[in-house]
């Protein structure tokens, strides 16, 4: 059973947190980067193509000249400097990056956004008793892995209110403090955060995303769709 918990967002911190966004120029990564650049964060942006990163940097600074962002050349250095690391990359890349950042990500929040879809988008490549987030946790045993942003589409970042409803963004993880911190990031990104449960609930969240992708293709939602829990 999926347990849904309402959460209360505490007072925002004064101390600026540094967030490394690995894969910042992808559809999801750029959506996350643009939204979080409006918060009290310093962003370290990494992607393989420097020219795309520079374009993203220019776009962010044009929209928000006071944004505290920096393009970085090394995911390990960026993760060392960061308090929070967002792996905005596909599942296989997530696992490769994990090897590079393992030591510097010790005890840090590492966010897995990946949905481990197969090539035909009709199933997941992870075993039924695991998930992309849990596989990441195996590679980063001393990090606080959190599943987040996987149930929303990239276009939702520009338009988190769809059909007059603010899209929910589900979060799963085993560390209560980390769940709280990531909830605040979700709020900054424009979504309604719902802590769904422990990290193993990522299996459900990744399956929810698979279903949303399938429904999007079938019903032509134009990749602007999301989940919303209706409740009293």
């Amino acid at each position, binding site marked *: 059973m999926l347990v849904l918990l309402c959460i209360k967002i505490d007072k925002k*911190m*004064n*101390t*600026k947190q*540094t967030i490394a966004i690995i894969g910042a120029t992808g559809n999801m990564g750029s959506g996350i980067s643009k939204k979080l650049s409006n918060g009290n964060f*310093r962003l370290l942006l990494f992607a393989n193509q420097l020219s795309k990163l520079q374009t993203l940097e220019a776009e962010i600074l044009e929209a928000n000249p006071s944004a505290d962002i920096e393009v970085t050349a090394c995911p390990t*250095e960026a993760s*060392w*400097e960061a*308090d929070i690391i967002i792996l905005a990359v596909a599942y296989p890349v997530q696992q490769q990056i994990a090897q590079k950042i393992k*030591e*510097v990500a*010790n*005890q*840090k929040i590492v966010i897995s956004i990946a949905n481990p879809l197969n090539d035909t988008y009709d199933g997941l490549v992870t075993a039924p008793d695991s998930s992309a987030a849990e596989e990441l946790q195996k590679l980063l*045993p*001393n990090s606080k892995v959190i599943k987040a942003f996987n149930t929303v589409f990239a276009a939702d970042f520009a338009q988190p209110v769809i059909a007059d409803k603010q899209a929910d963004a589900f979060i799963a993880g085993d560390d209560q*403090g980390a769940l709280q911190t990531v909830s605040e990031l979700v709020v900054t990104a424009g979504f309604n955060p719902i802590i769904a449960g422990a990290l193993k609930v990522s299996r459900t969240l990744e399956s929810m995303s698979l279903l949303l992708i399938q429904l999007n293709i079938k019903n032509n939602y134009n990749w602007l769709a999301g989940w919303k829990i209706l409740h009293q």
Partner: protein
Amino acid sequence: MYDVFFQKFNEKISLTEQEENFIRQYLTPKKLRKRQYLLQEGDICKSIALLEKGSMRSYLVDPAGQEHITAFALEGWTIGDLSSFHSELPSTQNIDALEDCELVLISKSAHDELLRTMPKYETYFRLLITDAYLALQKRTLSMISLSLDDRYKAFMESYPNIAQRVPQHMIASYMGLSPETLSRIRSRINTSK
């Protein structure tokens, strides 16, 4: 990444390789650029930091907006607001980097877990607190009993490395003096040499 941390730890209490590996699981490596904050007033101090590299200061701002430096830290030193760290209440202090820093952070939850599971960590931390208490006592006694000139001399003798790396106006703030007063003290001492 943890060299200085374990060097300092081993100076207080010797660790085996297995014990170092056990502790390493709980440590957070972190870099901070010059002028970035580790902690700002109003936030809870969630970690204490050992400096692998660089220098930092803690300070508070009085109601008139005047900064008062409460501590400096160099390589191998530990810095944090212990009061906020222990009580988990908002800090009245700010801690920022005076130079680019490499830090080893111990979060409150990691600290509590290490205290619970590892007697050697408890010993290490007790010795750390004892040292901090003695330094605080020395500073208090110096403020009560020494002349301004002798206080400055004592500071320079105790912390020659800080004097080399930190601007004079910050040393004045740490000593509770105006920069002008500190400048006069320094002139007097230099003249009398």
